[in-house]
């Protein structure tokens, strides 16, 4: 359904050109949920913006293609891209606070989106009511303004809006990060049940490893503009191969494991205006060798059996015996690198 090929997205900045997304290839099948996990600055939001054609003015697609059901979105004009937005691909942004227009009622905003794409729609009001019911909001409140809604309700209204045209693909950029845990749980639950109803695919972009574990079929882990590992949730959470993925999992608290030690990854991500030549994780990696400093690893199958589990590491063959058994010990990651 969605095929991103070798995508490079650059930003022009005062420090020079920043390669925010570097050679990213992802594939999303019909009806599938793909999670993109990474920390701030890893390029995950830039990837979403590139897919939706809403890069900021200093950002541009340098090379690569984004194909949606056979059409290269990157080659379309802004006008043509707009046709796709909402109708085929819709976005649930992180902050509904900023995404909704404060001077129009929610109903007016949803109807505007419907009108643009389906001017012949006989009864747009009924779409609003239907969507409000779907996300668990009282349709009578659609005539209110965004400020009359609480944060959780606004996020639900935003979801109602993004689903109004039955999009085939939903791009959710940190959809619940701004919400409290109970509201987050309800919204995620709601999104997945709606998805089952309308049979859409979803790309979830988040830093929250647990959200991905619960909502996605497959995961791609991004680090410093590149995908470093991808596989099914079972593969990534059961038997990760990339040292960064292993490190990230150790750093993330699990409410069911009170005795777990939280271990941080030493050091900092590299400056993308001047990325290192070799593996971008090398200077934080406990397994790094000379080869890692020199040569950038490519994303390869981790073993002969699991064709869909790929990792970008020179030492995939050593992970089983070397790093994974030791990954949960603090000494493995401790280093005289100060943060």
């Amino acid at each position, binding site marked *: 359904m969605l095929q991103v090929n070798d995508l490079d997205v650059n930003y022009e900045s005062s420090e020079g050109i920043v390669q925010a997304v570097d050679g990213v290839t992802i594939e999303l099948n019909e009806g599938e949920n793909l999670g993109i996990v990474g920390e701030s600055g890893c390029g995950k939001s830039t990837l979403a913006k590139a897919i939706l054609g809403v890069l900021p003015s200093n950002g541009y697609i340098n090379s690569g293609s984004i194909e949606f059901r056979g059409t290269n979105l990157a080659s379309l004009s802004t006008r043509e891209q707009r046709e796709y937005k909402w109708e085929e691909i819709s976005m649930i942004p992180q902050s509904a606070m900023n995404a909704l227009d404060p001077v129009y009622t929610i109903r007016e905003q949803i109807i505007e989106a419907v009108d643009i794409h389906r001017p012949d729609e006989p009864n747009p009001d009924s779409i609003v009511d239907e969507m409000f019911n779907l996300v668990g909001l009282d349709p009578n409140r659609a005539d209110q303004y965004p400020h009359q809604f609480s944060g959780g309700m606004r996020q639900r209204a935003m979801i109602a809006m993004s689903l109004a045209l039955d999009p085939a693909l939903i791009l959710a950029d940190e959809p619940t990060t701004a919400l409290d845990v109970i509201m987050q749980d309800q919204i995620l639950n709601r999104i997945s049940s709606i998805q089952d109803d309308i049979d859409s695919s979803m790309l979830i972009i988040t830093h929250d490893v647990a959200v991905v574990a619960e909502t996605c079929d497959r995961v791609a882990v991004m680090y410093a503009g590149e995908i470093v590992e991808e596989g099914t949730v079972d593969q990534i959470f059961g038997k990760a191969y990339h040292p960064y993925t292993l490190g990230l*999992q150790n750093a993330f608290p699990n409410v069911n494991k009170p005795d777990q030690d939280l271990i941080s990854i030493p050091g900092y991500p590299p400056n993308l205006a001047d990325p290192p030549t070799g593996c971008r994780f090398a200077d934080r990696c406990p397994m790094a060798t000379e080869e890692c400093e020199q040569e950038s690893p490519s994303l390869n199958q981790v073993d002969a059996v699991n064709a869909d589990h790929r990792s970008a590491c020179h030492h995939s063959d050593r992970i089983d015996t070397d790093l994974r058994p030791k990954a949960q010990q603090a000494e493995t990651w401790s280093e005289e690198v100060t943060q």
Partner: protein
Amino acid sequence: MTLLRVQNLKKHFRTESGLLTDITNKIRGKKPEYVHAVDDVSFELAEGETLGIAGESGCGKSTTGMLLAKLYEPTEGEIFYRGDKFSSLNGKKLDEYRQNVQMIFQDPFESLNPSMTVYDTLAEPLRMFNYSHKKNRIYRVLDFVGLRPPEEYINALPGELSGGMRQRVAIARALILDPDFIVADEPVSMLDVSLRAGVLSLMNDMTEEFGLSVVYISHDISLLQHMCDRIAIMYMGKIVEIGSAEEIVANPMHPYTQALINAVPVPDPNQDRSRVELPGEVGDAVNIPEGCRFKHRCPEYIEGVCDQEPALEEKTATGPDRKVSCHLYD
């Protein structure tokens, strides 16, 4: 020994204020409205103890933290610091308290003055309280928070440091006066996951090394479980349950605590957690309902019974050192 005793603490904020509002209220015969941010909270904090306060936004956890740091004056109630009443602290005693209690805020991008170097940021509190040997102290504390070697950091401005480093500077600033009590309000929620663990273990070291008592305020229960001896759960300005961190998470008793813990996503795709969908949203903190504040959302609501306000107390089922305010238990 008890460091801090909080007794029936309340903090109410006027929803609107100003002369004009007062006049129109008077004309219309309207009484001013208050947000009951903190509404009758009591607990004790022992020396060297770490207490977590958890709850959703608006539950009053941050206001409680501000009251403890004496950044707000309570509407009612009293806080005792080493036996001394807060309200009667003045002169030398107040100075002493100001040195002994420090706060770490959520956002290291906003809590540090952007035009002050790391050295100035750390020297300012020392100057205010007339400390000597500033340089030594500053170097020592920078070394402790992991900004090594200190010479490389002293002349840096906050803008030149990453989020994790900035939060370390904020921690260094909190430690520089050698306090005995720290209030940390969401100290890592702005930091990236891979750096969080480092700041948390630094805060653990700090608690041990300096023998500090800490109140952690966070919405993240999994994190509090890792950091705290005890956890208090707040809902609409009240503590609904308090007890050892381990007990609260493993065996939550209050229906709200149960919902809160059930809602935490688990980083394990094979784990199916039971979901309790709570109806509605956190109630209105201006017009507080009669009886239990959670009753409209509570899956265990008992008509008649829950219209009486439950007290936070030890129950037969809780055992000692644990309190819950719910009519389900007796």
